[in-house]
Structures are given as structure tokens and as C-alpha cells.
């Protein structure tokens, strides 16, 4: 069965510094990969997704992620964070040719320090 591991539960970073949120998955078959963001007191919204093709995926708000099949990773990056990026970030995986359940990681809370 597939699973998703987000290696850090919390990540503090200074404003305007770069950030990387780590995500590893386990699956023996091909997958789709997603990053969702949850701002305080809101539902989740899609940040970016990898379906196929280029392994570097660009999303909203300046975020990008790189799919690394050999390392089964899908790390999220932003070169310069802003206070408005304070949120919880969820990595998720879905088997490509199976039912529509998506497996979510436990989340990484990003704290932006002034």
C-alpha cells in the first residue's frame, strides 16, 4: 500500500529566506503527487501537482516541487518566503490507475519569523 511521509512537522524560517518542505512516498506503481496548503481557519487548496512529464512543477504563490522517482521524493521549495506563507502544507499521493482515494501526509506547519 502506498504511504506518504512528511519528515518535518514544523519548519521555522526567516522572512525572505528560502524554504524546502520534504515529502517522501512509497508505492510500487506509478503515482500522481500533490501539495496542498491550508491557511489558518480555512480548508485545503491545491498548490501544485505532478501528473507526468517534466519533473519540475511550478505552482501558485511562487512555490515549486521536484519529482524524483529514484528517491521517491516530491519536495516543495520556495526561494523567498513571505509572512503570508504561514500555513500548513500537506503532501499527497494517488495511484494513477486505481480508485480516487488520495493519501495525505501528516502535514508540515511553516512558521515565518520576522
Amino acid at each position, binding site marked *: 500500500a502506498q504511504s506518504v511521509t512528511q519528515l518535518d512537522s514544523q519548519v521555522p524560517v526567516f522572512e525572505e529566506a528560502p524554504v524546502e518542505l520534504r515529502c517522501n512516498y512509497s508505492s510500487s506503481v506509478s503515482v500522481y503527487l500533490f501539495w496542498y496548503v491550508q491557511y489558518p481557519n*480555512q480548508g485545503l487548496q*491545491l498548490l501544485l501537482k505532478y501528473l507526468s512529464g517534466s519533473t519540475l512543477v511550478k505552482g501558485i504563490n511562487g512555490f515549486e516541487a521536484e519529482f524524483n522517482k529514484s528517491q521517491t521524493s516530491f519536495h516543495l521549495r520556495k526561494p523567498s518566503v513571505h509572512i503570508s506563507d504561514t500555513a500548513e502544507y500537506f503532501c499527497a499521493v494517488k495511484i494513477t490507475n486505481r480508485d480516487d*482515494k488520495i493519501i495525505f501526509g501528516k502535514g508540515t506547519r511553516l512558521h515565518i519569523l520576522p
Partner: protein
Amino acid sequence: DVKVTQSSRYLVKRTGEKVFLECVQDMDHENMFWYRQDPGLGLRLIYFSYDVKMKEKGDIPEGYSVSREKKERFSLILESASTNQTSMYLCASSPGLAGFYNEQFFGPGTRLTVL
């Protein structure tokens, strides 16, 4: 834009009460989902539905039931609320297997407190 709405943002109920959480989506999506979100545990799937009157158990269905009488509406029912069901409940929808992207669209959540 896809819109998923949930009937309440905040709800306070007493132990033993029957609780209904309603979710409506306006994009004609086949699939609908109910999750609960707890600190340190992420999102856990309670139930999902691929079609009207169809339902499938997720990872933590105990103590919950669901109803999908119309395509756009998916209800979560707590038959007899207990304090360990205090949580944030998130509803989501997605297009079916014929859909291209399979991403899920989420509602704003209902924060339920059971006293």
C-alpha cells in the same frame, strides 16, 4: 470556480446527540469525501462516495455514517456524538475517473466540539 460549501463553520453539540454535517458541491463531481483533521494526525478519510446512493468506508468509519441522495450533496452523520469526535471535519469533491486531474476540492471545514 469549483465551490464546496459546508453547512456550519463551528458547531457545539452534547454527548449523545445526533449530528448532521452537510456538504454541497456545485461542479457536478462524481466523487465526494469526508475527512477529519486532528493535530499531528493529518487528514484521515472517514467515508467517500463515487455516485449517488453509493458509499465506501474510509480508514476510520466507526461512529459515523453518510448519506448521498443527490449528486451534489454528501452528509456525514454522527449517530451518537462522543467527546472523541471533537475535531475539524473537511468535505471534498473530485471529478470521476474520466476526469483528467483527479485533484480534490475542499470546503472550508466544520469545527465540531462535543461537550
